[in-house]
Every structure is written in structure tokens, then in C-alpha cells.
């Protein structure tokens, strides 16, 4: 096999591998972030209803109610950070996967 043919095979292997890596690493991260944020919003609404009900019933004082509402704000920040962290972790796997892919494809194509 000529160098040009080997190089074409190398490029083809790398590009098809990158497609697979990217869809599992980045595509799934975006889907997860979207579904997590929807779930968080739905839970927030449910909690707020429950706490308002408890406030009316006298199970919660006004200070306790305010504290819980603010705690949901803190959780929103932690959820946002989690989305960033999970995406970073997936990107890191993409990066290390890419490194292995390029090296392995070179070994395979050029018979090193």
C-alpha cells in the first residue's frame, strides 16, 4: 500500500472514530443537561407548592419558608455546576479517546 493510500485510510479511521466519540461524549452530555434542567424546574415547582401549603397550615414559619426557598436557589447553582462538571468529564473522555484513536489509527494504517 502506498503512503497516500495509507494516509487516506488513517484519515478515514480517525474521522469515523471522532464522529462516534463526539456523539457519545458531547451529544449525550447536552441531552442530559437539558433533561436535568427540566426535571429541576418541575421539582422546584412541586416543592414550592408543598412549602406554601405548609406555610398556610402553620407547619412552617415565614422564616423557615424563606430559608427553604433560598435553599432551592443554592441548589440551582449546584445543579448548574454539576452540568458543567459532567460536561467537562465527558469532554475529558473525548480528549483521551481522541489521543488513543489517532495513535491506534496511525499504527493500523502505516503498519508501525
Amino acid at each position: 500500500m502506498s503512503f497516500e493510500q495509507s494516509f487516506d485510510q488513517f484519515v478515514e479511521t480517525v474521522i469515523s472514530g471522532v464522529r462516534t466519540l463526539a456523539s457519545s461524549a458531547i451529544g449525550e452530555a447536552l441531552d442530559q443537561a437539558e433533561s436535568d434542567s427540566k426535571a429541576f424546574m418541575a421539582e422546584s415547582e412541586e416543592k414550592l407548592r408543598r412549602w406554601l401549603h405548609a406555610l398556610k397550615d402553620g407547619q412552617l414559619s415565614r422564616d423557615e419558608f424563606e430559608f427553604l426557598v433560598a435553599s432551592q436557589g443554592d441548589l440551582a447553582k449546584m445543579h448548574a455546576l454539576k452540568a458543567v462538571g459532567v460536561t467537562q468529564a465527558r469532554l475529558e473522555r473525548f480528549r483521551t479517546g481522541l489521543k488513543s484513536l489517532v495513535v491506534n489509527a496511525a499504527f493500523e494504517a502505516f503498519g508501525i
Partner: protein
Amino acid sequence: MHLLAIRPWALIAAFLFVAACDPFISPYNEQAYRNATELKARSLDLVARSGEPYSRYSDEVADLALDVNAAYEYAAGLPDNRVVTNQWNILRDPDGNLLGGFITQWRESGTLSSFFREELSGQIAEGFDQIICVEANKGRATRCE
């Protein structure tokens, strides 16, 4: 024509550049994961006891606060770990509304009411779960429910 011939090289060079970048996040760390899971269990145990007078548990609370601060410092000492460090900071903040705020409330009020501590327990557990989720995902892709 010349540019087209260069493109594959440019593409591979770009891939190599990405592969050679600094890590996006610190690698999985067993101690960091254990810190979060153990401190979650201890924190929820104390929240469950906060219907009793704070003075009875002040030593345990001080120990917990110390260990949470140690977990924060441990996270802050790991490279590329700003996300988890910031999460610990929100959770432990005594002026905030999760674990640190719970300790402040209990100390100032003496005891906490039943409904409030049950709800707060769920909030604090969820806060810890956000840290645990990031730590678990450093090891392998995990869907955290």
C-alpha cells in the same frame, strides 16, 4: 487544489492539538468520592436529630463542620477541580441555605421543627448528590437521578 491536499493534515493537526490540551477536569479520586458520601450520611444523621437541643450535639456539629471544611480544602487542592470546589463552598456556607445554613439555624434556634428539618434534609441530600454526581462522572459516564 493545493489547499484541499493540505486539509487532512490540518484536520489531524487539530485533533492532535485537542488531544494535547490540558485536562478539562481532574481525574476520578476515590478519597474525594468517599468524602462526599460519608459526609452526606453524617450530615443527614445530624439533621434528623435537630429536633433536639443544639447544645446536646454541639461537639458532633463542630466535628462535622471541620470535616466538611477539610473536604473543601481537599477538593481545592486537586488540579482542574474548580467545579467541585465551588459546589463544596455553596454547601458549607454558614450564611447560605444548605448544610452551613442549617448549622447556623440550629445553633441560633436551639431546635428545628419537624416539617422544616424533613424538607431541609432533602435539600441538603440533594446538594451532596450534585457533588457525588460530578465525582462519579469523572470515573465513568453516569446518569445521576
